């Protein structure tokens, strides 16, 4: 059974949960894998480090919670600091590189950084940084197909914002491809 545990994290308002939803939708609807998304609710989710947890698998996901993420996406320093210790020793760590200073990585870990906020600002809307991150994430992890992720973005963003969001996705994706 091959299951991948992923944690999407950042601070509230960055679109962390939506990033998780897009990726889960891409995996389950467009790539026909099993994907289970959970998120923290309540006081523990109200702080400055919020997260969505996603398990992507070839088989049905039985245990619903992420225990040791193999992939961590961090869009804030606090989220990075909080969730890095949970990850596996060979985890893939994906950061917003102007918001997160990645320290304390283990030797087996792989780090990928992107100035997503700056790219989003160049595109005219700072709030689409999460979609830039999703594009980047798609490119560096290869966990879901490019088309699948793109379709999932289209399904998940407010009507009328598709063009801008897809542009953000493609910029993130390109940046990731060049880095790889």
């Amino acid at each position, binding site marked *: 059974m091959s299951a991948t545990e992923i944690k999407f994290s950042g601070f509230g308002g960055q679109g962390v949960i939506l990033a998780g*939803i897009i990726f*889960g*939708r891409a995996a*389950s*609807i467009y790539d026909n894998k*099993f*994907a*289970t*998304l*959970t*998120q*923290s*609710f*309540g006081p523990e*989710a109200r702080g400055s480090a919020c997260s969505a947890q996603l398990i992507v698998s070839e088989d*049905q*996901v*039985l*245990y*619903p*919670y992420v225990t040791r993420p193999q992939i961590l996406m961090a869009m804030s320093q606090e989220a990075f600091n909080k969730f890095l210790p949970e990850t596996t020793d060979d985890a893939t760590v994906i950061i917003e590189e102007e918001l997160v200073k990645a320290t304390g990585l283990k030797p087996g870990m792989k780090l990928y950084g992107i100035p997503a906020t700056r790219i989003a600002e160049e595109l005219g809307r700072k709030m689409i940084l999460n979609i830039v991150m999703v594009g980047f994430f798609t490119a560096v992890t290869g966990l879901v197909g490019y088309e699948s992720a793109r379709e999932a973005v289209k399904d998940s963003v407010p009507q009328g914002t598709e063009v801008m969001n897809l542009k953000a996705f493609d910029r993130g994706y390109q940046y990731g491809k060049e880095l790889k």
Partner: protein
Amino acid sequence: MKADPKGVMTGAHFLDGDHACCEGALAAGCRFVAGYPITPSTEVVERIAARFPAVGGMFIQMEDEIASSIAIQGAVWAGAKAMTVTSGPGFSLMMEHIGLAAMLETPCVFVNVQRGGPSTGLPTLPGQADMMQARWGSHGDYEVIAFCPNSPQECFDLTIEAFNMAEIYRVPVMLMLDECVGHMTEKVVIPEADAIEIAERRFTGAKPGEYLPYETNGNWVPPMVKAGDGHYFHMTGLTHDERGYPVMNAEAQEKCVHRIVNKIRENADAIVRLREAEIEDADVVVVSYGITSRVALKAISMAQAEGIKVGHMRLVTAWPFPENRIRRLADQGKAFVMPELNYGQMYLELERVVQGRTRSLLVPHGGGTVHDPEVIYRKIKEAVQ
């Protein structure tokens, strides 16, 4: 009858269990919901408030759960299919009117997205500790039907089933989610409307003045009327005769209670839904429901990897309890292990049926998260020792 396409969001979606429950209600033909938002069920009514008006339905945010649980019954007698949605503390407030729904034989659905309790407990975290309350919470003798979905897909499918069962047996049907299933997001496939089977309400053919609301003509379940169709009759929570009028004697009571209990008990085998795997040559059967059934599968595969013969029985319906099936398995000498997110509720039913003939072990959990599969696995090993 097939579902009304207006309410059916055909396609593959990525939905949480709460939202899937709303879509199930729409597909089932539910057009009235009254509720008072409470975590972790709020997302159900949020979506209902957004979706229902577009299909000619109505959502009312009531002053509390007591009002919600009676408003839906008014809507049902006006001809609608209706449900209310809550979690433990709200469910407690609804108990009186669950009894009224049983007594008046009002077909309706109560959704309880279970969180940790007692009292306000753990609003944002899972529990399965309202299972006995769902069965026995109101006073007096009555029976209910309860479903326990274990995925967002089943939140959709079983909400439809719940409405169908409510109509067929004219009982309050409990849809017992847990916070984990309610807040978990997965793929949900919604079929075409004409692939969804809907149980229609059975209305009387009697003319106004001739209708006897509780005349059964040898059937378990009498037909209904719609308010406004010209039928006048009395509705009361008091023990009543065929006309619906109060009658205060033991004979009328016997007739009343006998039927509202036995229409379920005598049809239990037709109502009970189980999913079983590898039970036939199993030495141990793990019995579970809701989110716990998924975690149990993980424990079962750990035990099977060691050569232990373990089967799985999942209670898709918790009430009525599958007595006949469990009894047969106990007769075959199989042991039982039952994990649940409480300190032993459905387990008491298991013990009642097994009657000590084989080993039955509880894997209790106070709630707040799900079981560690390792703990269930150890109990499976203990059961075969």
